[in-house]
């Protein structure tokens, strides 16, 4: 399984694309919004979360498509390794290669959005808890997109509705930590719950989709 992760890391030029995209969105945002620091602080968590969401959508496309194109998917299906486990490993590898760098980049980008240490920490923490959910639900979309022979557009349409709850609670938790009347705990626990559910559902749904949809 660790080989799978290594392959994803080594081959994954896609990982860098995601982080670069994240960087671009977040860096450009202050210029677009203008020099209103208070507004930036208020928008900060939302911008970071949107950037992370779009960045992970961008890279999820390659999750199974690359394997389909070079024939690896055929071999994966004839393997004695359970397909669910393979899917989970692939998602984990994808998250380490593409999701974790987003979390690591967040503190740096927080500076650009006039977020203080606490706020940046809160956003990074919510991203750490939330991006696995994006990856694991996104994997279901990626598996469906592969079996239907359609590209990234379909993936975006399929995955976005699943990603919206993650986005809502991610941003809510970050806002709560910075300004909000609510406590940080409640939305954050729901975010963690979403991630945990996706850990369980994601690999099975993706494996089922791959198994029944191949043609």
């Amino acid at each position, binding site marked *: 399984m660790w080989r799978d992760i290594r*392959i994803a890391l080594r081959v994954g030029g896609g990982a860098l694309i995601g982080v670069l995209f994240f960087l671009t969105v977040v860096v450009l945002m202050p210029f677009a919004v203008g020099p209103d620091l208070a507004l930036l602080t208020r928008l900060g968590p939302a911008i970071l979360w949107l950037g992370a969401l779009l960045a992970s959508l961008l890279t999820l496309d390659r999750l199974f498509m690359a394997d389909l194109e070079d024939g690896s998917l055929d071999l994966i299906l*004839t393997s004695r*390794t359970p397909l669910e486990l393979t899917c989970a490993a692939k998602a984990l590898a994808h998250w380490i290669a593409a999701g974790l760098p987003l979390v690591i980049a967040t503190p740096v980008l927080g500076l650009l959005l006039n977020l203080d240490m606490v706020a940046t920490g809160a956003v990074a923490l919510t991203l750490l808890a939330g991006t696995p959910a994006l990856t694991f639900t996104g994997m279901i979309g990626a598996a469906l997109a592969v079996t239907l022979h359609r590209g990234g557009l379909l993936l975006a349409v399929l995955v976005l509705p699943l990603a919206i709850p993650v986005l809502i609670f991610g941003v809510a938790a970050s806002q709560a930590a910075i300004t909000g009347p609510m406590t940080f705990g409640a939305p954050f626990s729901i975010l963690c719950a979403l991630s945990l559910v996706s850990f369980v559902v994601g690999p099975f749904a993706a494996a089922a989709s791959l198994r029944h949809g191949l*043609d």
Partner: protein
Amino acid sequence: MMAALQELRTAGTMQLRGLQVRCVRGGREVFSGLDFAIAGGEALAVTGRNGSGKTSLLRLIAGLLAPGGGSIAIEGGDAELTLPEQAHYLGHRDAQKPALSVMENLAFWRDFLGGESADAGECLDRVGLSHAVDLPAAYLSAGQRRRLSLARLLALRRPVWLLDEPTTALDAAGQTMFTGLMRDHLAGGGLIVAATHGPLGIAARELQIGAAS
């Protein structure tokens, strides 16, 4: 001697059989009513014009396509494993990651696919790739990539070989080498189903798809 006999005996009971196999792709019937049976130590050459369904048949056997009807079953193999788990599928695409080296590619599939495995270096030696062990797969020629795929068949012992145009891109020496590999596999009690246009170089039964139409 005893071990070889034992191997032959267990292999002799192994049989791959398809009954009234029907294949439908994209709502269109590719073939139907196909019967075939081969036992351990035998090879089946699947022939037919382009688009007649040779690749589809192999993918059906490998479990990569759902049959539109009929049944494909293996008897006498390891009862714990499904047919796809006992088969090597060698398709048009070589399933190699260009960023990994030749050895890493082979070792990954050997460990990932699971089963009784052999030394990877030795397998590369047998297919004539021992000089390129540490080369990234991106630099391999089409023929070398094919040789690397063949090494996969050796690195992991699985009784059924499903080969789709196996000699594509191989030079004359490579084809001779490959014929030897197939002979060894059959002698060890293995089964081969190969889709091919040219001669395989080994004694094989022929299954022609789409002969009637």
